[in-house]
């Protein structure tokens, strides 16, 4: 008996040791669980619904002013973070510029391993050599690359396990988006709409790197939406970039992605029509890539208003019914709540000053345009500017308060357009913008009621900000102004509670929060620095 007990103890010890010593094995179920395990942050928005809302409550409105820097990690490189880190079992995995990436000890900020991709010399990038983060499944990390590949890395060493090309970077294709893992697939898309690409969303087998499906965000002849392009080859250069991670509804098995602007950005005489599926949200079957529905925010966009914002999923009580919705603060300046089963508009109102559309028609779901906003060679003034009412910075949603928090930009621009000749590899926007001399841009964090699309409160910044947002169940919202302050506000009222000057504005990044050794950490990438905060011990 004693021997058996001893043997059993040994077996259990061995299993225990193996469990302790083994590499992280992230399952689809883990990702589906979202932030229920508070030691982890496993996908771009923390949860598949894109709410970026943490259940953690150790840091509260009452004690947030005591937050103290625990450590800083510096990349030692030129170029700012735009990534959301992945956190697993006390280790942080984060990507930086030029497809550098690091594994970092979450206790000390010390580097564990570093990955650096060998990139081609002359890449074609509109907006810097940035990357927005890893996805994770099993013991692998997945990253898109500037030369439009998908790579899988060994989570233990940062060693490449596979490297598959999505498209030819020499033709203007690139990739910066953090991939989305759904079941056994890695889903991502390409950027490059400023260089005449034809955008797409693509799914790969997470184990082999084999391509499973591709959905073109620019419809071709004979395809659904193909009649929204002229009967020319304009669709082959029609844009529709994917550069912000989508969300996933497991009940419907649908992924939702916001799509980029049509190409060329400002001159549109050669692409008459709505230009589907640019400046839209598309709902795709996660297994097949089949389009279930789409909603186009800006038909025939001529202001570079990519709809590449995070589609946030939630459930709302509307007229006595619980509706499954997607909430979307769009770059065109309108906030939308859409039924995510049917794709039909529920409510839409401006959340910043907009001068291009009177309203969004509830009958057609289309904007009712105002005159004199079509760019030409002499210039027309329109609000918002090309940066939009908001942009790629992640919003958050507090399902208890039913408030949507978004970094808003109050801006206007003079838009110009001309018939620019297309050349492969040359920026092809067909115009540009300038800020009028009398235009003062500013920003704010705004709380929006998604049932009415009305503003509940705002906290103003003197300049525009591109900071993402994180909210927590303790009643906090963390955001950043345009000048480098990390700011904590009371989520119900917008009252300022605490701020910390990080030295450089948060650009697309927002806080990530997790538990480690019994303490709640707030992790903030800003510029070239990753800073960890916690309450004093």
């Amino acid at each position, binding site marked *: 008996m004693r021997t058996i007990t001893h043997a059993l103890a040994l077996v259990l010890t061995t299993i225990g040791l193996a469990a302790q010593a083994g590499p992280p094995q992230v399952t689809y179920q883990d990702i589906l669980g979202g932030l229920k395990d508070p030691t982890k942050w496993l996908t771009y928005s923390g949860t598949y619904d894109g709410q970026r809302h943490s259940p953690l409550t150790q840091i509260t409105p009452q004690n947030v002013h005591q937050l103290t820097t625990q450590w800083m990690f510096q990349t030692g490189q030129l170029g700012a973070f735009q990534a959301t880190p992945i956190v697993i079992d006390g280790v942080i995995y984060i990507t930086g510029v030029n497809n550098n990436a690091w594994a970092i000890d979450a206790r000390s900020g010390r580097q564990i391993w570093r990955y650096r991709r060998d990139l081609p010399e002359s890449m074609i990038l509109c907006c810097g050599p940035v990357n927005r983060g890893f996805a994770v499944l099993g013991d692998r990390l997945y990253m898109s690359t500037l030369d439009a590949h998908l790579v899988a890395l060994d989570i233990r060493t940062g060693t490449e396990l596979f490297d598959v090309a999505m498209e030819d970077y020499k033709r203007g294709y690139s990739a910066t988006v953090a991939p989305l893992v759904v079941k056994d697939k890695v889903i991502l898309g390409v950027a490059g709409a400023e260089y005449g690409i034809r955008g797409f969303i693509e799914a790969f087998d997470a184990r082999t790197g084999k391509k499973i499906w591709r959905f073109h965000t620019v419809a071709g002849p004979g395809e659904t939406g193909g009649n929204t392009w002229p009967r020319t080859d304009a669709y082959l250069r029609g844009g529709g970039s994917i550069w912000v991670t989508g969300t996933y509804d497991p009940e419907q098995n649908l992924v939702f992605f916001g799509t980029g602007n049509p190409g060329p950005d400002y001159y549109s005489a050669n692409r008459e029509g709505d230009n589907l599926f640019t400046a839209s949200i598309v709902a795709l079957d996660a297994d097949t890539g089949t389009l279930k529905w789409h909603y186009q925010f800006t038909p025939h966009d001529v202001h570079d208003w990519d709809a590449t914002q995070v589609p946030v999923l939630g459930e709302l009580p509307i007229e006595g019914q619980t509706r499954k919705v997607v909430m979307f603060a769009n770059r065109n300046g309108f906030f939308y709540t859409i039924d995510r089963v049917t794709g039909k508009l529920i409510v839409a109102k401006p959340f910043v000053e907009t001068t291009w559309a009177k309203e969004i028609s509830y009958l057609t779901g289309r904007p009712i345009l105002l005159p004199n906003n079509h760019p030409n060679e002499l210039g027309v003034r329109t609000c918002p500017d090309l940066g939009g009412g908001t942009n790629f910075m992640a919003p958050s949603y507090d399902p208890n308060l039913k408030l949507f928090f978004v970094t808003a930009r109050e801006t206007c621009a003079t838009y110009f357009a001309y018939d620019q000749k297309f050349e492969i*590899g040359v920026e092809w926007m067909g115009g540009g913008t300038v800020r009028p001399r009398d235009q003062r841009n500013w920003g704010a964090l705004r709380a929006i009621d998604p049932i009415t699309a009305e503003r509940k409160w705002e906290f103003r910044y003197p300049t525009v900000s591109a900071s993402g947002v994180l909210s927590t169940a303790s009643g906090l919202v963390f955001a950043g102004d345009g000048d480098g302050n990390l700011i904590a506000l009371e989520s119900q009222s917008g009252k300022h509670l605490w701020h910390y000057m990080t030295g450089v504005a948060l650009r697309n990044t927002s806080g990530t929060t997790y538990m480690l050794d019994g303490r709640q950490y707030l992790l903030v990438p800003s510029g070239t620095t990753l800073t960890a905060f916690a309450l004093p011990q």
Partner: protein
Amino acid sequence: MTVNRMIALLLLVPVVALAQAPKPSETHPPGKNPHLGNADSIKGGLVLYRVRCGNCHGLDARGYRGPDLTVALGGMPDERLFQTIRKGVPGSDMLPSSLSDHEVLIIIAYLRNMNVSAPVDTITGNAENGRAVFTAQCASCHRVGETGGRLGPDLSRIGSARSHDSLVSEIRTPSEWMPPGYEAVTLVTKDGQKIRGVKKNEDTFTIQIMDARERLQGYRKAELQQLVFDKTSLMPEYGKERLTDSDLNDLIGYLRTLRGSTTR
């Protein structure tokens, strides 16, 4: 290697060759600019000019924060113009450009299509009297070389950076546009002290200023009783009663001589 793969590779070769993005040239491409006089190119050049150059040189190219191009370009050959756009102007706000050769050439085609006058921006005022006017009226706030104040912008290079008309406008009506770093602010501290100065920087919670005594100081907004962003510049309006047309002409004559090489 499978046959299919060989075919794919053969097909790929011309695509890759086609895909080489033209590298921007340091100097004007050989031969005459093919876009000169071409209506479509000029239209494109107009847009690119307005987007890339208009903020400083003015939408009509008659100068704003940058020189009046209708004057400056009169005697400048295309080769030098191309290089100026490509490499920028050291020591000025004009930075090197990564525009494609095509884009630079159509901007030049647009500029050459304007009614560019000969370089007639000769100094007409009496620069010596202008210097005396400057010393008496401007030097307490503006610096030339190693003398003068620091509350207003340094004018050591103003002669190469501003057109005649923009200098007139900035002297007669300085509140129309206050450059970044020189916007007027008034602070009232909690103990009632009123401070006027120019804003050097600002974020959501703090402001950094230079006060009228040239003291640099930062303030927490929450600790101020009042913070007003003034619509009028700290620089007074020099109307005709304060500065005659003749003295203004002389002053501008003097300012036009300032091109960075100052008497020390």
